[in-house]
């Protein structure tokens, strides 16, 4: 968990050149995008600018932001997505698009965050379903055996 108690993750952000830089990013499931990064932190990374986009705030108001192409690396996995450049914010945020592109599900536990592969979650769900079905169509009970 990050300094403010929010779920956080160490990520490396890079543009087309250089090795990029490591950041502590807050996982924000209320953010539908890939990455939101303060403009002043993005400039030294040399992210390739795309242009602009509209974003809608929690109160329903809408404004515009610059967008850029960014690569995020987490441990040995990398994905390229769209970064929203925030003019005044100080926080690096990763959102639902990040989880979709990395094919991850995340769990918050007492003192940390676990990022798990979606395929692993699907395997667990499938195994649980099979176990449930086995229990439902299990061996006959003692009373039904007597009846037979």
């Amino acid at each position, binding site marked *: 968990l990050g300094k403010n108690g929010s779920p956080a993750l160490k990520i490396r952000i890079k543009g087309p050149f250089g090795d990029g830089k490591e950041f502590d990013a807050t996982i924000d499931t209320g953010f539908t*995008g*890939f990455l939101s990064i303060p*403009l002043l932190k993005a400039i030294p990374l040399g992210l390739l600018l795309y*242009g602009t986009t509209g974003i809608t705030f*929690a*109160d329903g108001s809408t404004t515009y932001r610059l*967008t850029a192409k960014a690569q995020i690396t987490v441990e040995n996995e990398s994905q390229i997505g769209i970064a929203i450049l925030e003019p005044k914010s100080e926080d690096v945020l990763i959102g639902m*698009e990040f989880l979709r592109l990395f094919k991850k599900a995340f769990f918050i536990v007492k003192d940390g965050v676990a990022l798990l592969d979606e395929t692993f979650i699907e395997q667990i769900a499938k195994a649980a379903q099979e176990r449930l079905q086995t229990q439902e169509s299990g061996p006959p009970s003692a009373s039904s055996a007597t009846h037979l």
Partner: protein
Amino acid sequence: MSADFSISDPQSIATRGEEIYRTKYQHLERENTGRFVAIDVTTDEAYLGDTSERALQDARDASPEGLFHLIQIGHRGAYRVSYSLSETSVDWIFG
């Protein structure tokens, strides 16, 4: 080429992108709600994609020098954030 745009004036890029969308591409809403469109404000061309990164990458491939305004079709903003306008000063720091 419609006009000269500078990345130092993002408000003009966004305004022009919205204007092009309203006049030339709003019909896309009939069958493409939820998809993304990247509008090149320098050429008025639009690039559709199921995801925002697909639309922008196709746009960049087709127009390497383009400046793009990204719209999610049928939505006010392409992205939603969890904080509100009052929590942060959001004025452009440019021009």
